[in-house]
């Protein structure tokens, strides 16, 4: 902090004051308002706060918050780590995070996909971590091919070391613009946004998975030095050694996030064997994957905001006798267009007890009816759990999948569980 120019110090202090006020008055966690106040005083504040630190920026459509948390945990052995762990992933949130940790030499910042080019230019990060790009909230987000092009353009002129998923063609194409890259074979379950070559539009040849190449222009998957092996729950490191993951977070998507985190930790000089125990300690991230116990039933909360995310959530559901509650809203943070529900295949839910909730439950109801999935409608998670427990006293678990504001409403009903 003492190295900052006076004006930047003042901006940073005023921002922190506004953030505390926001928290004290219960209006929010202060991440956004603090940054906004600070930016008014010093428009270059983000560049100034970033100077002299080794930052890692983390961006993707899905898994940003979780991967930011995993990398932060892995880097703790280097000392204090500045991070925006409340998910405020735009420049105002970055300012608040860096102001909160003035002495941290290392930082890990989750960055909204649209803001990534600007934040790379402003913060000159040591590392930029890119995981996946897929359709998401298209009524307000830009087209992802355009987004990948913007990433590629900024990476071409940056010194940053890119650590990216080689199995996502759009992400790989963006990362191939960089001067230094480490490739991770992180897998890609959702492929509906990458059948065509990002370079020329040709129909990609995509077998055997995860290989991909364009028969028209020759663009192809870069060779990966790190790889996830889901079958053995392991990550293969650049020397070919297998590391058993045994994470506290479920699913293939989190194995991929962990592989990316281990590769990032290695770029900071931390051995995977040292980083791995730190990753295992994480069992929930800002309410994601957390469980609350109500009526004697463990209710697990899964956040999924788009088709790729729903596919990953279906893959981690409990056994078929575990009921699932689906809740969808269409407020501004969710995207006001529910068309994406039709991109998800719900037939995997056919043999399960299913409930639909949320402000757009009618959209979900039609979608499930069309896929031949039996369901019931409900207003509140707690009502459903009480009813199910009454019917089945031996019931121990239910899973809840919800999109953004629906998830926050459910989380709030259980006291903002972490």
């Amino acid at each position: 902090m003492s190295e900052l120019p006076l004006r930047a110090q003042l901006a940073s202090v005023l921002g922190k004051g506004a953030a505390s006020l926001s928290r004290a008055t219960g209006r929010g966690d202060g991440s956004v308002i603090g940054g906004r106040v600070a930016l008014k005083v010093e428009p270059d504040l983000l560049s100034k706060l970033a100077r002299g630190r080794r930052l890692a920026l983390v961006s993707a459509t899905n898994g940003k918050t979780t991967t930011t948390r995993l990398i932060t945990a892995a880097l703790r052995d280097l000392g204090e780590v500045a991070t925006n762990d409340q998910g405020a992933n735009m420049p105002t949130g970055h300012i608040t995070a860096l102001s909160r940790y003035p002495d941290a030499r290392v930082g890990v910042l989750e960055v909204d996909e649209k803001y990534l080019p600007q934040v790379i230019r402003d913060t000159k990060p040591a590392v930029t971590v890119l995981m996946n790009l897929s359709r998401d909230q298209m009524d307000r987000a830009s087209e992802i091919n355009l987004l990948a092009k913007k990433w590629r353009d900024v990476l071409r002129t940056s010194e940053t070391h890119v650590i990216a998923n080689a199995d996502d063609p759009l992400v790989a194409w963006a990362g191939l613009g960089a001067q230094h890259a480490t490739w991770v074979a992180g897998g890609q379950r959702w492929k509906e946004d990458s059948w065509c070559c990002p370079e020329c539009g040709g129909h990609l040849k995509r077998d055997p998975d995860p290989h991909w190449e364009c028969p028209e222009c020759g663009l192809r998957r870069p060779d990966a030095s790190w790889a996830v092996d889901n079958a053995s729950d392991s990550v293969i490191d650049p020397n070919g050694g297998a590391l058993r993951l045994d994470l506290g977070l479920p699913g293939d998507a989190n194995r991929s996030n962990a592989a990316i985190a281990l590769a990032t930790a290695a770029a900071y000089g931390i051995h995977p064997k040292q980083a791995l125990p730190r990753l295992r300690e994480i069992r929930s991230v800002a309410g994601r994957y957390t469980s609350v116990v109500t009526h004697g039933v463990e209710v697990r909360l899964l956040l999924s905001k788009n088709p790729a995310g729903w596919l990953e959530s279906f893959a981690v559901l409990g056994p078929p006798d575990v009921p699932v509650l689906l809740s969808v809203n269409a407020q501004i943070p969710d995207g006001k267009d529910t068309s994406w529900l039709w991109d998800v295949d719900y037939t995997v839910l056919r043999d399960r007890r299913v409930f639909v909730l949320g402000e757009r439950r009618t959209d979900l109801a039609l979608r499930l009816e069309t896929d031949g999935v039996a369901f019931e409608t409900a207003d509140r998670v707690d009502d459903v759990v009480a009813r199910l427990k009454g019917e089945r006293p031996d019931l121990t678990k239910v899973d809840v999948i919800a999109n953004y504001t629906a998830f926050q409403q459910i989380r709030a009903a259980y006291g903002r569980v972490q």
Partner: protein
Amino acid sequence: MTDTSSALRIVWIYPDLLSTYGDQGNALVLKRRAELRGIRTETVHVLSSDPVPTGGDVYLLGGGEDRPQILAAQRLRADGGLKRAAEAGAAVFAVCAGYQIIGESFGDDADNPLPGVGILDVRSGRGETRAVGEIVAAIAPELGGGRITGFENHQGRTHIGPSARPLSTTVVGIGNDGQTEGAYQGQVLGTYLHGPALPRNPALADMLISWRVGQLAPLEPSWGERLHEERLNAALNA
């Protein structure tokens, strides 16, 4: 395609290029509403690397970003199958970028006109502003009247030529130009209601099926009808 003369053949054109947001819903709902009436169906997904079969009953085209749209138009023109099928009387239902593609011409990202497939007499260009939000329109009386609802997300503006007619009159939202929404010519129909336009408008799905198989038995109202009402009320009272 195998010989299934009694089945309704649904052909989804280029899901690899033209499937932006829920376009699959149109194929699923046509299939379901036909099968509920005992009509067998067969659905074919035609990739952009494959020839377009000419023996289909209903051809579906979805939305797409600028570059996939241009590629899809080039490939469909070079292939010729869609045009031959439409000329032979097949039904075509195209949304958003697909709607523009089946017209005479559409604008690229700099609004330079590019040739379309030419089975619907419309010409599209880029407007000043992007049209994003819920849309409601009143269907042309000769198509049975009633209202359609959907979500639009496009920058296109479409002018209807003498051989085509407007599908509907815009009530909420923009559609073609703030006045009309969509267009049709014979059994070729285009609309800016993107993605799952048929799930949200069961009557429109039934119209397309009946064009190929004749009059349909009515179905008990279910979630499609409820969603239609719900979205109509939400858009009209917003």
